[in-house]
């Protein structure tokens, strides 16, 4: 091969190498700007005073920076997360209902994060107001059936204490706050949970919560109070004081007679406590509870 061939091959190789080294497997775009979050119905950085059990609504509007999608919204109160959602959107609007607890002051921080790891946040301060606000209502002897129970429905509305069958509940998913089933997948036995708690689709089958477009969420906390203390619960402040935001679970599992759970219905911001009085642990079984729950419309 002559020297020209060397040059040709060298040139070819140079071009090829440049191509190989320069072509990127990934394209990243970064305009450097942070995503934005605003409170549209209140003044960010402002404050107000609420009594325990009293609620306030925040209308949040979040927007991306034009290149990286929004991925995470966090709402925290005094460092405890009330909302922590993952998603992939360019804009995101969220209504957050905060119900005042017993702390002297709650500093709420609203944080939006994006795919690039950038974040923005706004805050709002809520001080504790004096006096008592709101009422509680008591439902005694409420029986909720497990998924195969043909006598008692498996779905409950907390505002009225009414129980619904699956077909009835599917027509009013926004009114369903609690449900009951017997778990055989994770050995959780008898469970009270909420439609938003990732109940396996096989539990209720077609038409169950996995098919609903609205799934309300509640969180539960096993507490240690006596039956007498439970019976003495009479104020919203009592209910609020028994719940810990940082410890709530999405399911009350392995229910047994005598268990007492405090809970918070997150969409309405309602606090409550229930005590298990009877359990029949099987798919066609049931749970009977006494329940004290904050009344809606009385905050």
């Amino acid at each position: 091969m002559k020297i020209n061939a060397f040059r040709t091959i060298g040139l070819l190789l140079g071009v090829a190498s440049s191509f190989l080294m320069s072509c990127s497997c990934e394209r990243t775009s970064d305009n450097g700007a942070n995503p934005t979050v605003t409170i549209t119905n209140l003044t960010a950085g402002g404050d107000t005073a609420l009594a325990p059990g009293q609620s306030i609504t925040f209308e949040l509007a979040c927007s991306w920076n034009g290149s990286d999608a929004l991925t995470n919204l966090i709402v925290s109160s005094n460092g405890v997360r009330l909302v922590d959602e993952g998603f992939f959107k360019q804009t995101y609007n969220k209504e957050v209902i905060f119900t005042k607890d017993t702390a002297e002051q709650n500093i709420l921080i609203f944080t939006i994060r994006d795919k690039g790891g950038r974040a923005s946040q706004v805050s709002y301060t809520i001080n504790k107001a004096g006096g008592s606000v709101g009422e509680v209502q008591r439902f005694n002897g409420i029986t909720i059936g497990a998924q195969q129970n043909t006598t008692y429905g498996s779905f409950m509305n907390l505002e009225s204490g009414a129980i619904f069958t699956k077909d009835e509940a599917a027509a009013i998913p926004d009114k369903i706050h609690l449900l009951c089933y017997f778990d055989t997948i994770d050995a959780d036995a008898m469970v009270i949970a909420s439609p938003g708690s990732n109940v396996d689709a096989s539990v209720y089958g077609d038409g169950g919560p996995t098919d609903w477009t609205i799934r309300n969420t509640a969180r539960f906390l096993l507490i240690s109070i006596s039956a007498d203390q439970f019976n003495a619960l009479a104020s919203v402040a009592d209910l609020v004081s028994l719940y810990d935001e940082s410890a709530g679970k999405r399911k009350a599992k392995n229910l047994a007679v005598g268990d007492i759970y405090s809970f918070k219905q997150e969409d309405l911001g309602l606090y409550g406590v229930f005590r298990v009085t009877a359990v029949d642990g099987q798919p066609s079984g049931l749970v009977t509870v006494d329940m004290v729950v904050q009344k809606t419309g009385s905050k």
Partner: protein
Amino acid sequence: MAYLKALLVLGLAIPLFCNGQELAVSDSSIRMSDFINPVTVVSTQTSHRADSLPFATSTITKTEIQDYSARTSDELLKFIPGAYIDRIWGVFSKNSGLSLRGLDGNNRVLITVDGIPLNKSSYGMVTWNMISPDQIQSIEVVRGPASSIYGNNAMTGVVNFTTIKPQKPLEGNVDFGLGELGLRQLSFNVGSKLANGFYWDVSPYYRTGDGYIIDPVATRDSTSSKAYIQERRISFRTGGVLKSGLTINASYTYYKDKRGSGKKIYLPDGNYDSYEDQAASVTLSAKRAVWNTDMHIYYQHEYYKKQSESINKLGDTYKLSYTFQNSDDAGLWFGATHAPTKWGTITTGAEVRFGRIDAHDVYRTSTDDILRSGNMIAIGAFVQEEAKLSSRVSLTGGLRLDVAGFFDGRLTVKDPTKATGFSSNSNQYFGSSHWQAASPRVGIKYFLTKVVGFQAAVSSGFMPAKLDDLCSSRKITKGFKIANPNLKPETLNNVEIGMSLKPVSSLYIDLTGYYSYGLHFQYFVATGDSIDTGGTDVKPILMRDNVGDVVVKGLEGSIRWQPYTRWMVRVSASTSTSKIVKFDSKIAATNLKGMAISEVPDYLASAGIVYNGKRNTLGITYSYVGRQWIDDVNTQRLADYQTVDLHAEHSLPLGLKLWADVQNLFNAQFLDKKGEQCPGRFFMAGIRFNF
């Protein structure tokens, strides 16, 4: 479209292959001795004909490498008795695994290129595509423990790829190929041997493929997507004679890939793994009086990125996370061999090896931020004596001592949520730990006649803990893995006997049986606890632990036959059985005593025929992979499968060559341990220009 292009190329190729006239090409006949009884170095660091060694060895020759269907360098290892290549997705596989002698995992086999280790201390994997199949001169394999020379990782064997160096003032090739599933590849190789004895070569390479959906039809959902690939590599090599008796070889390889994992939700590239590897090495070889010495200095850096997105069954909880991981491996290996004396041949040497991992898991749909890091250093020294006791008997013995330490292991967790399962912020410092290993090996070879030889060997090998197991707590496919900073190396003590038979010069048969006893066996075990990571189901907590002792027994055999000058036939078969005979893990929830080791086939077989004509070549490969357990309690078993591959080439004038490749000719359908399917029959064709 690519499929049509490939068919067009094949359509052009077949008539030429069948009817073309003989053209002037270089003689490509095969030296019989190179195939039947090749020279091998890897077993003892000294040159020997394969049949003279007391240790089980195998060699795959350059001709076979060129003429069998192999799109990646590791695929050729299926011809090694007892070797299992876990590459179910073919070229689209993201982590190919090599198992030898009934124990799974790349980390148990030392992989080297011209003596330079490729195993990473971080998590034991080997980036096989750092090796260009075009540059391989031969593949030498030691089956069975060889830690008496090589130390770390050489527990079930050693695989060494030797590479081709330029021999002409200018030589090289350009290769372009198209395949099904949108596969396109382009490679160059140009090099020169200069008048002053030095050489250089440069080899860029590019491959991309659209891929296929790895989820079987029955389990596909809206998140199933194609497992695509994009990869590129460039290597530079140079070397030559510095002065009389002193040669130098240096190389640098850069490799980057991006491989889809078969799931996509919102991001256009979905879940993927991306490896960016750089490896540099310098080898100095000196011949001084009665000593031959070699010194390797090497450094390997890997930047690994993983993008992972998932959504729960209800579609309302989306997770997006990234892993950014840097790992480094560096070392110095020195070996010296004294010329044979009446006392035999002495080889001695020493090695220092350093490894590091520095990883960052960051979540974008939650605030979890996890940092994990750790370092390892190992120092070893060895000596080996090869003595020829008589014209029929040779004895080889060696011993290597290693000390190693794990230090500065850290695990930092910031702002955790249920996405990762950590309950609170933490900053764990694992302190340091160290261990020692003594690895002896003794083997004897006895020739009963010139036709029949027997060998017996006792050897020991070890595998250190991987840095990822020592200091990483993170979610994995099976559950949630907890770091185990107390993990110790495992040791394999091995006894083997074998025979070689060379009834005629064109036929070689070898048979080896082995019994291995493993101590402190490392195994993934479930602790019995579980963790809520926010999904529908809780995740089991797992940990790599030294669970006890194992026994592995096996039989390996191979036949090499060259019936005619241009024909080569190779048959290999093996079987192995394993059992956990002592189980004393304090962590595991289930006692696994009596269970077989998972992810290793019970039977393996392969056969290959090569016709290497002046203008046309043909390689046919048959491969059988037996059943294998895929869980530690031996309740789930993968079915066996078999494949047939073809590779054909036809030479044209002006150095052009057409080639075609069919993998899995009969479209066998089989699944991997995760239930993901193989691509089925895969066709590829291309054209090559040699100059």
